[in-house]
Every structure is written in C-alpha cells, then in structure tokens.
C-alpha cells in the first residue's frame, strides 16, 4: 500500500475511522434527537414569567438525530484504549478489571434514583450499603473510623490532613509542617499546602526508602505528620515502617498513609497494624470502580480513634432502634468537604467488588497482583536497568539508563508500547528515578498477556539498540501520531468556534443545508 489512498474517494472506512468531525460540525438546523412527553399542565409564556431573565439564543448547541449521535460517540470510543481491550500497565494507577455486575447494580432504580434529601426512613438501603462498605474497609485497613465523603484520592488526602490539623489544634497547636518524601505523588505536597502547612522534603536513602536518620533529624515539635506511600512509589514495602511510626509518635506527630498502593496489601497486611494513624483509599484503584477516562474517583479516609471526633459531617451512626442515621451533631468536626455523602455510586461498585471476591478472593487478588509484578521483573531485569534491588510488591520500577545511551528515553519506549497494542507504563515517575518506567500489571492479567508484554518490551529494548529512530518517533500504528503539545500550550484552543458567518459555504457544507 502506498501512502496515499487512490481509490474511490469517501471510502467508508476512511470516513468512519479517520474523520469523525466534532459534534458541532455535524449539526444541521431542524434535526432533533429527543421528543418530550406531552405537557399535562397549561403551557406558560417563558418571556412573561422570566422577564429580562429569559434566554433567547442557544448558540452552537448541536442539532442531530439519534442515529447520528450513537455513531458519533461509538466512533469516538473506538479511538480509545481501555482495560477491556488489553493490558494497561500504568504504575500507581491500578488499572484492574472493572466487573460488569457493578455497573448493573449501580443502576438499580432504588439506588440510582435515591435523592440525598429523602427521609432517612426511606433511605435505609443506601445507608446500609454505606455501613457494610465502611465496616469492610475498616477491617481491610485495620483502622477504627471512616468517612466516605471525599470525592477522589486527592480529596481524601485533603480530608486526612484536615483531621491531622484538627487533632493538633485540639492539643493547642496546629503545628507548622508536613514531611513528604521526594518519591511522593504530586498531590501530597499540593494537599499539605491547601491545608495551610509548609512542605518539608524528606530525601530518600540509596534504596529509595525513607532514610530513618534523616527522618529522626527532621521530626520535631513543629511536625504535624509524615505523608507516606506504602508500598512506596517504587513498589517496595517500607520494612521499617514501625520505626518510622515510632519516630513520629515520639514527637507527637502523626503518620498519614497514601493508600494508592493498597492493592499490594489487602488481606495480607493492615496499615492500622503497622502504626498508620490516618489514610485514604482509592476506590477507583484498589476496589475496581471504573476510571472512566479520568474519574469519577472516590477517596474514603480511615483513621484511628484519636481522630474520630474530627471526621467530616455527617457521620453514619446506628440509632437505638437499630436503624441507621446520619449524625450532624459533631462539634469537633472539620466540617464538610463535599455536599452530601460522597460519590455514592462508587460505594455501590466497590461493595459489589468486595462481595464478588469475599475474604479469599481479596487475598488471592493481592497475591496475584504481587506475583504478576515480580514475574515481569524477573523476565525483564536483564534488559532494563533496575535502580533499586529491594523485593518488589505490586509494581516494578525500571529506568531507561541502558536505552538512553542511544538517545531512547522512557517516554519513547512508552509510546512504542502503543504500537504493540498496550497502553504505556507510567513514564518519568517517581521523580527519584531518572527516566523511570513504572509498571503495574495488577492481578487482572493472565500469564499469556504478561508474556505478550514481556515480548513487546524486550523487542523494544532491542529496537533501542538497533534502530533507535524507530522508537524515538513512535507510535507508528495509531490513528494519530505524536501530537504537538507545545503549540497546544502556547496558543491554547479550548473550545470549538463556529466559522465566521461571512465564510462562503464550501460545496461540502452547502450540501448539508439540503
């Protein structure tokens, strides 16, 4: 095949797969995809009721028929990569299978249509879901109390650090700083700043772990907490976690755990048992609620008893008659972090995941996740640099050191992976590893799929030796090639605009008028 298509123009496959316009470009006046029910009350004159406040123009809002809309979004969907298509080895994101029964139960009428202000007597089912999920998460984490209100992981961090602050304030001094390892997610320092704390950077030791001597030096009476990810962002369990907790507690500081990597621990180890005071969970990572192209998430925060009085309002409680209620009378609460009770739709899905697994399934899930990461490590460590040799948990972090000699960087190899039918691994994170390649397979991958990834990465390593240009210009087989992000940032185009009215109609658009 040559570069240019020379057959009949407007071949369907080209039209469908290459050129799906923006919805606005497909719109024509007078088309409709809806019909409202017949109005059963007298019609009103909007202009008379609203006066000056009435709207007269809806601008570029599209006008299409139903079939065109279905095709538009179906075509767009085919341009996405997804877990349903193959492995998504994106480290720290836990891209596991999203059970389909979760979607079905989340749409049951009595749940999907429950109104957040409906009377408690008619909300016992939704409250029970929150109760069973809360109890399950508390046993999984080994903590004492929980709030489901935070809307996402970063929002959970915010809530957790609010609890830390309220706790210290109750002791008379909110303290000044939060310690954050240099290997942490960017949300950690951003969160500390939003809650009004100074961020103090904690350097990792040669193994990429918390440097105990350094920690001992930095922790003082101004330290409110350490925000720690465990297993760390290099996928390694902080073996001296109890000493870390002891150093903090000796100075009255608290240990916050970022639960992003809980998929390595569920059913095997509980943060509450190794000294964590407060932590968040990511239901969209560990508990399989769908990522959906970047949200919604859900970030419950679990804590020890000492922090319980400060939880956001309302808190789920049981009345003397055994019914569930929402308790708003919480004088020491940090207040609300979100309207109502959190991303309830995600609670349903997470609980459905827990029910489908049970205790045995959850433990096996964790073991398989760790097994998969170690398998990839064993099969790839001879072709990629492994900066830290400590045993891996649920993810493995290589670096591009060997390939960079030929000018091939982690980002290039990630892009080349797209040509082999995979999503990229996490590129350039954590920051403590130059040229990081962070691979998290999750438990959802079969041995066969893992072997395909191993083959692809080994092949890419060879290409980096023999034909670096091929890797540096990847991807080659995707619908679009590398995109110009520089121009996108220098001259941002953030919305579609109708061509100026004076633009003469081209034959193509003129045809649409008919």
């Amino acid at each position, binding site marked *: 095949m040559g570069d240019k298509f020379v057959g009949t123009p407007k071949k369907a496959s080209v039209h469908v797969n290459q050129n799906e316009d*923006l919805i606005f470009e497909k719109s024509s006046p007078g088309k409709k*995809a*809806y019909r*409202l029910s017949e*109005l059963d009350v*007298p*019609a009103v004159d909007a202009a008379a*009721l609203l006066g000056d406040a*009435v709207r007269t123009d*809806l601008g570029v*809002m*599209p006008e299409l028929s139903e079939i065109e*809309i279905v095709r538009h*979004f179906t075509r767009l969907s085919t*341009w*996405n990569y*997804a877990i*349903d298509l193959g492995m*998504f080895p*994106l480290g720290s994101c836990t891209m596991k299978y999203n059970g389909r029964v979760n*979607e079905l139960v989340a749409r049951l009428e009595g749940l999907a249509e*429950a109104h*957040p*202000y409906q009377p408690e007597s008619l*909300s016992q*089912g939704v409250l029970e879901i929150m109760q069973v999920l809360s109890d399950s998460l508390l046993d999984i984490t080994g903590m004492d109390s929980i709030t489901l209100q935070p809307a*996402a992981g970063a*929002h959970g*961090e915010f809530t957790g650090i609010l609890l830390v602050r309220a706790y210290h304030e109750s002791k008379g001094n909110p303290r000044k700083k939060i310690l954050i390892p240099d290997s942490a997610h960017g*949300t950690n320092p951003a969160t500390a700043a939003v809650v*009004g704390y100074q961020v103090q950077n904690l350097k990792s030791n040669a193994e990429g772990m918390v440097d105990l001597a350094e920690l001992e030096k930095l922790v003082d009476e101004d330290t409110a907490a350490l925000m720690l990810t465990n297993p760390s962002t290099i996928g390694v369990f902080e073996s001296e976690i109890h000493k870390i907790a002891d150093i903090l507690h000796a100075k009255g500081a608290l240990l916050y755990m970022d639960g992003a990597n809980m998929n390595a621990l569920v059913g095997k180890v*509980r943060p509450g*048992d190794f000294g964590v005071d407060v932590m968040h969970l990511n239901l969209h990572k560990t508990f399989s609620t*769908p990522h*959906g*192209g970047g949200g*919604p*998430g859900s970030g419950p925060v679990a804590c020890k008893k000492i922090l319980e009085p400060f939880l956001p309002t309302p808190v789920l409680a049981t009345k003397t008659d055994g019914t569930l209620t929402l308790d708003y009378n919480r004088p020491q609460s940090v*207040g*609300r972090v979100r*309207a109502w009770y*959190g991303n309830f*739709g995600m609670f349903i899905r997470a609980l*459905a995941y827990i*029910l489908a*697994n*049970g205790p045995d*399934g959850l433990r096996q899930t964790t073991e398989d996740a*760790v097994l998969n990461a170690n398998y990839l*490590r*064993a099969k790839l460590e001879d072709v990629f640099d492994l900066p830290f040799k400590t*045993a891996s948990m649920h993810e493995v972090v290589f670096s591009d050191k060997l390939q960079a000699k030929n000018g091939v960087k982690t980002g290039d190899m990630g892009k080349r992976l797209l040509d082999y039918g995979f999503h990229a691994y996490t590129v350039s994170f954590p920051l403590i590893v130059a040229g990081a390649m962070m691979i998290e397979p999750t*438990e959802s991958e079969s041995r066969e*799929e893992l072997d395909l990834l191993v083959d692809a990465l080994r092949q890419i390593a060879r290409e980096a030796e023999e034909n670096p240009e091929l890797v540096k210009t990847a991807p080659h087989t995707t619908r*679009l090639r*590398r*995109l110009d992000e520089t121009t996108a*940032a220098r001259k941002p185009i*953030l*919305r579609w605009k109708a061509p100026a009215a004076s633009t003469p109609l081209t034959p193509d658009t003129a045809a649409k008028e008919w």
Partner: protein
Amino acid sequence: MRYLPKSPSDREAMLADIGAKSIDDLFSTVPAEYRLSRDLNVPRQHGEQEVIEHFKAFAEKNALGYASFLGAGAYRHYRPVLIDTVVSRGEFLTSYTPYQPEIAQGTLQALFEFQTMICELTGMEISNASMYDGSTGAAEAVMMAVRVTGRNGAVVARTVHPEYREVLTTYAQHQSIPKTEVDYDPATGRVDLAKLDAAITDDTACVLIQSPNFFGTIEDVAAIAEIAHKKGALLIVSIAEAVSLGIVKPPTEADIVAMEAQSFGVPVGYGGPYCGVIACKEKFLRQMPGRLAGETKDMDGKRGFVLTLSTREQHIRREKATSNICTNQSLVALMVTVFLTVYGKGLKELGEQNLAKAHYAAQTIGGTGKVLFGGAPRFNEFVLQGSKTAEVANAALLQKKIVGGLPLEKFYPELGPNASLWCATELTTRAQIDAAAEVLK
C-alpha cells in the same frame, strides 16, 4: 475467583520463573508480626446472581415507587437512553486519564465538545474538563478569585446552597480567606443589594452567588456584577440547576461560573458522583484549576486533542499548584455531553416544560399555603409557607407515597417550621401535583 485469570499451575510456573518457593516469599519484606494471619472480616464470596439479589434487597429498602418533590441541588430529570449506551462502552468506561493522547482521542474529543457546550451555555469564554461537584467547584472558584485578584476576602450570598457554603467554610479557613455572608431580601428571596454593597471591602476578592438560587429564584446577576466590579471584586455565579440554562439568560456578566452539571443526565444517585465545572473569562486561564482538553495537530498535520496547560497542576507544580485536584469526572462529563447532544437546542423546550410544571405546582400546591418570594422570577423550585409544619405535612404525604418539599428551618431558621422547598421538573406529573395538593389542603 472469577475475575482472576490464572490457573493454579500458572501460579506455580510463574513462582518457579521468579525463583520463589511460595507466594509468601514475595511478601518477605513485610515484617512477620504485621502479616495478617486470619481471613478478612468482610462478606463471604458471592456469585453474580447473589450480588444482584443483595443489591436489589438494599434498593427495596429505599423510596421505590414514591413521587418526589425534592430538588435543592439534586434534580430528577429524564435521562435519555443513549447516555448509558455510550458510557457503558468499555472503551470509555475502562480507559484512563488521557495521558497518551494517541490512544485516547475518544475521551479527549468528547471533553473538548463538553468544554465547548459549557462555554456556550454559561456565556463564558473557557471551561475546564470538569471537577468533583458543584460544592467543591464553588470553593475552588473562590480560591481562584483570590489568586487572580491578590485580594483575600469572599462575600457569599446566603441564598447559595447551604451545603456549598459549608464546604467553602472548610476550604476557606485553611487558606485564611475571611468569608462574609450577605442576607436576602425577604420580599424577593434575592440577594439584598444594599447589604451586598456594604459588605464588599477593598480586600474582597469575590462575590459568590447562586442563580437560580437555593430558593429557586433567579438573581439579578447584572446588578450584582455591577456592584462587585465597581469595588474591584470578581463575581462568581454558582449554578446548581443546570437545566435552567435552556431558558434562563446565562450569567455573562460573571467572571467565573462554578456549575454543577448533574441535571444534564447524571443520576440523582444519593448525591454523587456528580459533575462540577468551572468556566470563566479567558484572561483567568492560568489560574483556573482542573484539567483542560485543547486542540492541536499531530506530526502529519491531522487535527487531534491533548490535555494541555498541565503545568498548573499538582503533578508538576506540587505544593505551588493551583489546586491539589487530580482527577476530573470524565465519565460523568461524558454523560453530560451525550445529554446535551441529544437535547441540543431543545434545551429551551425542556426549560419551558420545567417552568410550566413548576408554575402549575406553585399555583396548586402553593394554594394550600403561601408561596414566598413572589417578587422575583423563578425556575423550577418555590418555597411554600405551609399551613402546617413541614414535618407534619410530609408525614401525611408519605402515607400517599409522596415525598414532599425539603423542610427549610434547619438551613434558614427565620423561615420557621412550616417552610419547605418544592421542585417540579418535566418528570413531575399533573396527577402527582394534584395529589400532593389534595393531601395538604
């Protein structure tokens, strides 16, 4: 376990390849005293059918089969079937944040379409690609105004959703942003303009109002903008009932719009997940939090879309980021995009039906007591000052499988125990309205 794609022999072979004797070898870095030696205390493993039955049992304990007049920030609107058809596609449902744009054009183009429609509807120049919800969006907008103006205070109308105001209190106190609340005019239920004028100082970064406000009343946005701008403060308009934008003039005089788009096809779902959005004037772009999809070209000159201006975000700027926000609500934004595409210009007709139903309900149900704040235009909600307490009235309504209006005394003690907030949308039927009025008579 049915989600796990490995046979026992796969596991053994893999352990052998790794050089481990047992799975416990792989957990050797975890000190023995912290390893859990018992089963988790969670429900036992359920079959798929059992999972469904379990949740059906939960669902049946809720308000199934009740007519509802609740709104107050969570609105029941008809959700076209296409919404779930689209969001159930695995390519959307099980994809991630589009960090690899070459294989995420579906999500990116849909977000670009979302941003365009939000701009068009709100009258703003730019929009982000969604955020958690309307309450946190309003708080983020206030922090944004502080960054833009270099001033520090927020003046907030008491007619803003009470829970939004609570969330703002939580955020503002740790940013040391003083917050002043301004009362409403008891005749109109709108912000008291004279009190507003008096509350704004030289250090006021922004005025935050909601329109239609918590009482369903449409604020005089132009007049409020003039007062705010005269004193150098920005105007933030929060919109909780997005369907109003089909028939109510957009708040073009605002500097920032912080919206809850739940009304556009997102299930009421006991309060979440919803879809917050911030839209604003283009000159504030650099201070706007949240993700943005932008248009660009690939190496061959083909149009494509990328996440752009990510240097504002936490993964790059860390403690200096515009916000600690990480995710957006992509899948919910997609629901909104499909809803808006299905209705398109028909949002006007949808808005008119809401007006008509609420007008009829206000006359009929209102006839059993008094409708407050008659002096200003409303969208689809109204405040009823009933002849009985809201508690007594609602108990009687429940007997007839009707969930009445939201009692307001908890949020607005001055309105007393008889006041409640009623909502009627295109889903509310005349029969339901008549039945409620009959009970209240």
